[in-house]
């Protein structure tokens, strides 16, 4: 029979009559204990030997117990001091005796408690009297000496003749002795193992590592490879990963590109003209004067906005477009429109594209999207950050209907497992009809707002020079992520407070 080196050595060292500890076998076979153990398990698989476990109780002295081996137990020191003070004749003051015995702190309590327990004497009103006993015969003191002598080899068995269990328990309770269990594996040859040995086993050449030399020399054909513990955990590695929110953004982009949408780009810092005025947002709209907008202190204004477009936008705000249109009953100021801000929504990109400012005039049909950041000076909570990713999408075509809008969203959200979308009629200054989109959370079943949408108003499109229909929608990427992954708090995801542990362990999205 051919076996790997280690197994041959273990087999030879094992005995057919007696269980032998694996550590002994390893020593005899000159193997590392773990190598011998591995080999023994492999041999057990082959029914060549059996492995059993034996538990022994190791008895050891604690640091305190160790200190009493030489220094003697506090109660004995107390007794001896009492004797030399003459307490066997008549009671003496306890303070005096304690001083002589050199006892202090917690040792005093220990000494007094055991002094009385063991009948070394009595304590009455601070007066100590000593009985007539032999401290040298103290079983606890003797037990300590035995344990000190046996050292690390002491087990319950090895001391059983010299220390009774009661004393051992007492010492354990006093914290002078520790008892620990140790399990040892024992091996014994089976009949098959004995037969195999008798028929003869020889070592096959085994190697730990497959080396370039083995491969090039062709020696790999004659070797056996040692087995690894393939179930064990390996040391931790740090790998690079895309940020979870970025993974979500990629997923959204994939879906939109699959639906025929082309990506938009544009400035983050932009004039209010592109952010709001082109969207037919009245200049006295609360969202434009409200504190939730990030206006800039420096620089303050954009240099150029197309003059003819400014005129058309102003007219739309003041008078509307077409015959039956009236505009807003509020003033419009070009200077206000030139002010710079961090965009509050990425619809500013849509305005730049529809006007032809971004890519020149666009002919229908078109689909565009962006997944970029928008900025709102909102109250921070579990679902609102100052900076968030907005998914923006729009479709330009002749004669688009509300049903086309619904169909596009149904398709989009289905890609993320969100079905049963409800459309709540809504109001936006720049769309009509407008809808808030609600979907059911796949886990909680709760109805949650998942987007805002509509068909752009003529007062927005006409000044931009668009003479067909455009439908659009927007939603926060973080909200979609919460729905798709069940995340509950986005504050720890985005920004410098991120926990690396989260980035390293969060489930990947696909």
């Amino acid at each position, binding site marked *: 029979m051919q076996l790997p080196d280690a197994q041959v050595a273990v087999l030879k060292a094992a005995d057919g009559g007696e269980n032998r500890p694996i550590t002994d076998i390893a020593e005899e076979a000159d193997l590392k204990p773990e190598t011998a153990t591995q080999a023994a398990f492999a041999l057990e698989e082959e029914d060549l030997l059996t492995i059993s476990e034996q538990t022994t109780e190791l008895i050891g002295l604690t640091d305190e117990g160790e200190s009493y081996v030489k220094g003697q137990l506090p109660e004995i020191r107390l007794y001896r001091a009492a004797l030399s003070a003459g307490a066997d004749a008549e009671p003496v003051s306890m303070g005096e005796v304690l001083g002589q015995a050199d006892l202090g702190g917690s040792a005093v309590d220990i000494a007094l408690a055991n002094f009385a327990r063991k009948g070394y004497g009595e304590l009455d009103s601070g007066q100590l009297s000593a009985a007539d006993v032999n401290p040298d015969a103290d079983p606890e003191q003797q037990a300590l000496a035995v344990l000190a002598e046996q050292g690390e080899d002491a087990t319950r068995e090895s001391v059983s003749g010299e220390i009774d269990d009661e004393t051992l328990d007492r010492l354990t309770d006093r914290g002078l002795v520790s008892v620990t269990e140790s399990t040892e594996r024992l091996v014994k040859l089976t009949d098959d193992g004995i037969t195999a040995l008798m028929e003869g086993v020889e070592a096959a050449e085994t190697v730990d590592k497959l080396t370039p030399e083995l491969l090039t020399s062709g020696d790999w054909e004659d070797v056996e490879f040692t087995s690894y513990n393939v179930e064990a955990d390996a040391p931790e590695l740090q790998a690079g990963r895309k940020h979870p929110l*970025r993974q979500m953004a990629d997923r959204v982009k994939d879906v939109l590109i699959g639906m025929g949408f082309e990506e938009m780009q544009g400035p983050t810092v932009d004039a209010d003209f592109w952010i709001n005025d082109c969207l037919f947002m009245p200049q006295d709209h609360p969202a434009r004067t409200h504190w939730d907008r990030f206006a800039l202190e420096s620089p303050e204004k954009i240099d150029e906005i197309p003059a003819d477009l400014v005129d058309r936008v102003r007219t739309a705000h003041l008078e509307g477009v077409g015959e039956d249109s009236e505009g807003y009953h509020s003033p419009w100021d070009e200077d206000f429109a030139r002010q710079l801000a961090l965009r509050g929504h990425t619809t500013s990109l849509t305005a730049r594209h529809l006007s032809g400012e971004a890519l020149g005039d666009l002919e229908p049909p078109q689909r565009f999207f962006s997944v970029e950041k928008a900025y709102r000076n909102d109250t921070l909570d579990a679902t609102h950050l100052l900076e968030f990713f907005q998914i923006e999408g729009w479709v330009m*075509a002749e004669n688009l209907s509300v049903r086309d809008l619904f169909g*596009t969203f149904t398709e989009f959200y289905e890609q993320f497992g969100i079905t049963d979308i409800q459309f709540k009629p809504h109001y936006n200054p720049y769309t009509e009809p407008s809808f808030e989109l609600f979907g059911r959370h796949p886990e909680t079943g709760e109805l949650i707002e998942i987007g805002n949408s509509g068909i752009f108003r003529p007062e927005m499109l006409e000044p931009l020079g668009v003479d067909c229909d455009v439908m659009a929608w927007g939603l926060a990427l973080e909200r979609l992520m919460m729905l798709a992954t069940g995340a509950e708090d986005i504050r720890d995801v985005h920004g*410098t407070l991120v926990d690396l542990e989260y980035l390293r362990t969060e489930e990947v999205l696909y």
Partner: protein
Amino acid sequence: MPVVDVDPDELRTLVDTNKDDDELREDLFALGLEFEGWTEDDEFQLEFAPDRLDRLSVEGIARSLRYQYGTDRGLAIPDTNSAEWTINVEETPPERPYVTGAIVRGLDLSEDALDSLIQLQEKLHATMGRQRAKGAIGVHDLTMLKGAPAKDGAQKSITYTSMDPDDERFVPLESNDEMSPREVTESHHMGSVYAELVDGMDRYPAIYDDIGLFSFPPIINGKRTEVTENSRDLFIEMTGTDQWTLDRMCAIVCYSLAARGGQVERVNVEYAADAPGELAGETLDRPDFAVKTKTITHDRIETILGISLSDAEAIDCIERSGLSTQDEETTAGEVYEVEVPPYRVDVLHPIDIIDDIGRAYGFNELEPRYPDVSTVGGRHDRSRLEDAARDTLVGLGFEDLLNFYMTNEAENFERMNVAPDDEVVGGGDPVTILEAYSEEYTILRTWGLPSLMQVLENNTHRQYPQQLAEIGLAAVVDENENTNVAEHRTIAAAIAEPEASYEEARARLQILARSFEKDLETPPTEHPSFISGRAAEVVLDGKSVGVIGELHPSVLVEHDLEVPVSAFELRLDGLQ
């Protein structure tokens, strides 16, 4: 978004329906009114978008439901009695030149009705009234007003004018003491809230009757004319900066009171010849219940909704929206002339009528369909470049980060040893935020490395090595740009571990450069964030695009780091 509290029982009474709470909530949702929860008094809290301001009261919501159910059809205008009272307008503050008004008589104001009126007033202030700046409402007990005829044989009158902030005295609401208008703005608990609206005015807005001052718009009314549950006849006045807005707000209030059984009586508004504003010399007959018309084609209704409708269905939807119409055939096809009632402030364009028709029809009845429009999708070049760079960094073992664009000067400059006027990567005139709400976010970052240092600082308890990278926005003020801001995407990468060194960073930068077929050179440079002699410019194809080096110990200690950090930062477009 406005939230209105509505007692469901009162709503049922006004609508005349037996529907239970759930059914009501469902019907309200279809109208765009979302149930937010219950008030302490078991009322619905309904939230809705700020377009249908005629629904800011239980009466308005009831009216919408009655139309939706078909209980009422078509446009309705309350009867009005002819005017007995006039509002004279003279010497008003030029900042607040306009006024409107109406009288409503014969009311039997229950506690609920009075609460509803107060709520409507507050909500109109918050929305159309732009926190009273554009329009402020005052409601008074008519019986407490004494109006001498303005001219012989003429009507009773009150006067909207101006007053000296210190010379006049009156007892305001919720007070027992006479105060001057200035004292009201300074110390009255309600008056001080809106004080800034009259800030800077030489003379304050004032309304007098024959007895004296009774209203100090837009701040507070006088106590004398306070409305109670016993008030039967009300005088409503509204002042502000836009006549159209005031007249619409007034129409909404009059409709609401008419629904409570009130009889509306007209009021004349006479602008003096020298009154400020655009209406000098004119006399207005108010409230303005003028009906406007919008023309829509049947074809446009069908294309927007994406369905075929019969004439009768279209007209039914129009009438159940509280509008009236006659259809006629023109050369443009079937056309509807739609009459719109005066409380509808949201109808700016015929498209708004089509939205009404869709709501009446039920948008959720419409079957979704994927549009038959063919386009080709794709990524933008810049974002593909960014993605390729990010993939390369991740492949090199960097943890991809996503930090904020906004930061503050301390993080961006001081803690990195950099000053804004240093001519190094990270230096530059930062874009600053006006009246920053938080000290944490006062500027846009000029570079990315400070954000990485913050992440390292916040993760010293986590296992090392820590390799972090981010591709994100950075910006500086730049007069050559149209927006005066130059924004760019920056690549920042840092390695923090006991063995981190310049070489470790450069090894990774080399791979990044090679992946994009860029020739990398790193001539020595000095940068205050890095150790002298261990910093270099990043030069790609002969162009300086960034910096690489070992972070200076003072920067590490500032960020509480106990391991060395090597890092590089370069412009994304350097890889293009």
